[in-house]
């Protein structure tokens, strides 16, 4: 009896020691390649989120396949913690989104945050959260509001943790106006009808476009605001036709905008649709409108979503994305989210640590040639857009031609030229 008990104790002790050894062994292995945890808040049920997520997964796979990120002397893999924020969905309060981010920070122990949230309301509210938890954040999907860099710039000391590597509406407006200028020169158009989704952002943006375009010699002959997700645009389009506009400038994100473009074709509105049209960015847009969306000119916000030769990386990225996901990159988010991880890798390797303050300093000095051009941040932590791929990143305006998105602007990315619908030629 006694003996057995002693034996039992012995075995127990041995097991314990063994287990301890194993455990410590595991921890040793672990600490050697402890992954860098990158929290990625993403609205998974929205097109933006899905595509941003794809971009990030692709990038992290590439980086890890190449051995990971070099921190000082060790190579550490990236570990992507993707979480569903559910923003851009009806009935979801922003606090839910913020809670998701808190989960990444507090529970998943993320070292930094990359990705969404996409909705402006959430994005703006999240800046305060990052400042509160003193955690680095690179906004790389959506959230284009000009309020973002204004807010970060207003108190850079407090909000230094936030960087925006996706675009800003301010730049897209400039691009749009420059494109309009080009069209005016080339085709002799000068009358414009504006139609927008009714959200604060679209309204503000459209007002700026309007003012700039008027300065440039355009005449704005009509202005329509429709509620987000309305499904009948006949009245506005009828007005547009009557007004004699030659360009229909649209600023709308809701998927229902594709209805507008179909009605545009059905009613044969003699005005070329140009603008910021969420629905028309999608590769599925042609199918969705049964080809009626042809001739629509839309911005994809970032070079690389269509095959072009901005940098050597651009075409390489396009092919890699298509190979990994069996679909071409959509637009917004695909490229910027992909690049964001490379930006991060670059900054970590230059800083030699994942210490937040060191990283912030490194990020501010980023000068990284990538897919869209060369990535640099301005003093408000906002990525610099421009027309020269050597000093800035480029946008991407495409026209739908025969089921393909053909880049027509800016010049450095351009792969084709603008075509006109038959009924507009007649007119």
């Amino acid at each position, binding site marked *: 009896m006694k003996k057995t008990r002693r034996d039992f104790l012995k075995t127990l002790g041995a097991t314990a020691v063994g287990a301890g050894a194993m455990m410590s062994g595991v921890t040793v292995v672990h600490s050697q390649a402890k992954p860098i945890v990158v929290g990625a808040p993403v609205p*998974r*049920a*929205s*097109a933006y989120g*899905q595509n941003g997520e794809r971009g990030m997964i692709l990038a992290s796979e590439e980086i890890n396949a190449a051995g990971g990120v070099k921190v000082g002397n060790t190579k550490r893999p990236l570990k992507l913690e993707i979480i569903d924020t559910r923003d851009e969905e*009806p*009935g979801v309060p922003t606090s839910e989104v913020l809670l998701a981010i808190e989960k990444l920070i507090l529970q998943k122990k993320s070292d930094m945050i990359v990705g969404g949230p996409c909705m402006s309301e959430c994005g703006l509210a999240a800046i305060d959260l990052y400042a509160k938890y003193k955690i680095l954040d690179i906004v790389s999907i959506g959230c284009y509001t000009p309020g973002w860099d204004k807010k970060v710039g207003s108190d850079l000391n407090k909000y230094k943790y936030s960087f925006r590597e996706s675009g800003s509406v301010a730049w897209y407006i400039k691009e749009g106006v420059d494109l309009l200028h080009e069209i005016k020169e080339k085709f002799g158009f000068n009358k414009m009808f504006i139609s927008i989704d*009714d959200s604060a952002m679209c309204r503000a943006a459209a007002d700026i476009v309007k003012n700039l375009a008027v300065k440039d010699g355009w005449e704005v002959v009509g202005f*329509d*605001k*429709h*509620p987000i*997700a*309305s*499904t*009948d645009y*006949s*009245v*506005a389009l*009828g007005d547009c036709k009557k007004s004699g506009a030659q360009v229909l400038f649209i600023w709308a994100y809701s*998927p*229902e*905008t*594709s*209805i507008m473009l179909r*009605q545009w074709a*059905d*009613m*044969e509105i003699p005005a070329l649709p140009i603008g910021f049209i969420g*629905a028309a960015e*999608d590769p*599925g*847009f042609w*199918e*969705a*409108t*049964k080809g009626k969306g042809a001739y629509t000119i839309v911005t994809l916000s970032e070079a690389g979503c269509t095959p072009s030769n901005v940098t050597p990386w651009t075409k390489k990225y396009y092919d890699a994305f298509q190979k990994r996901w069996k679909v071409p990159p959509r637009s917004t988010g695909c490229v910027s989210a992909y690049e964001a991880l490379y930006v991060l890798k670059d900054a970590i390797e230059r800083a030699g640590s994942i210490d937040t303050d060191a990283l912030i300093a490194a990020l501010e000095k980023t000068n990284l040639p990538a897919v869209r051009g060369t990535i640099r941040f301005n003093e408000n932590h906002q990525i610099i857009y421009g027309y020269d791929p050597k000093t800035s990143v480029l946008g991407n305006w495409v026209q739908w031609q025969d089921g393909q998105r053909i880049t027509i602007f800016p010049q450095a990315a351009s792969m084709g030229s603008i075509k006109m619908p038959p009924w507009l030629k007649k007119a």
Partner: protein
Amino acid sequence: MNILIYGTVNSIIFALVAVGFTLVYGVSRLPNFAHGALYVLVGFLTWSMVNDFKLFYPFAILISLGISSLLGALIYRLVLIRLRGLPTSEIIASFAVGLIILEGLRLQGIGGFKGFIGPFYVLPSFIDAKIKIAGVLIDAQRLIVMLGGLAVVVSIWLFTHHTKTGLSLRAIAQDEQAAMMLGIDSDRAAIISLSIGSALAGLAAVIILPLGNVTAEAGYRILINALAVCIIGGLGSWAGAVLASFVLGFAMIISTALFGSVWESVVLVGAIILILIFKPSGLLGKQKELEERV
């Protein structure tokens, strides 16, 4: 002229969306808050059958209408039958069913299911053509909406006023106890009304959806529209629902033309609130529920 024609189309869209809801409520006093979800479901089913299974379009429509009416019957048989007479529970349960359908459609990654997200889903138009009426260009699908809508409303009227089943349904609507004494089974009537109502939601979907694209979010909007029509017309009153469709349809088009389309939704919701405050029984409602009971 523009206003007249597009107002009419808009009104008929309202009527189509609401007719199923009002039929169910009229017959069995069941507020079917899954109405919008069924509408969207039929849209996706049809799309999926046409595009994934390459079915002939009309067949696809018939099958998905069948599924929808079956689902309507199931909702009653499995859930609502236990909740008769508890209006709050009926609302919550049917809304929950609707949420399951709508959010289920957007589920991703289960069994390779991608989820219906984004603007990819469009039903083909029946005829692709454009016609000019009194100087206004209109596409054939909108004409079909107009004619189809009228046909649906008229046939529902004929069905409820001139067929045996329809008459017994109406009898239930008027006096449930008396109808039960005459041997009309109220559960059966409710099942029939729910399956017809669900099929009508589906029918509305296949008529209206080719105008736009199918998104899950539309489900919420459809539900609010149907509610608006039914409340303004008077819950359960068919003539009222048709009248309210026209009032709303034109009110929205006119307010869009006058103040810009931002106010469209304000008009819609505002109308519901005003009607409920000033004449809760609706324009043509004969509900006694709100009169002082003694």
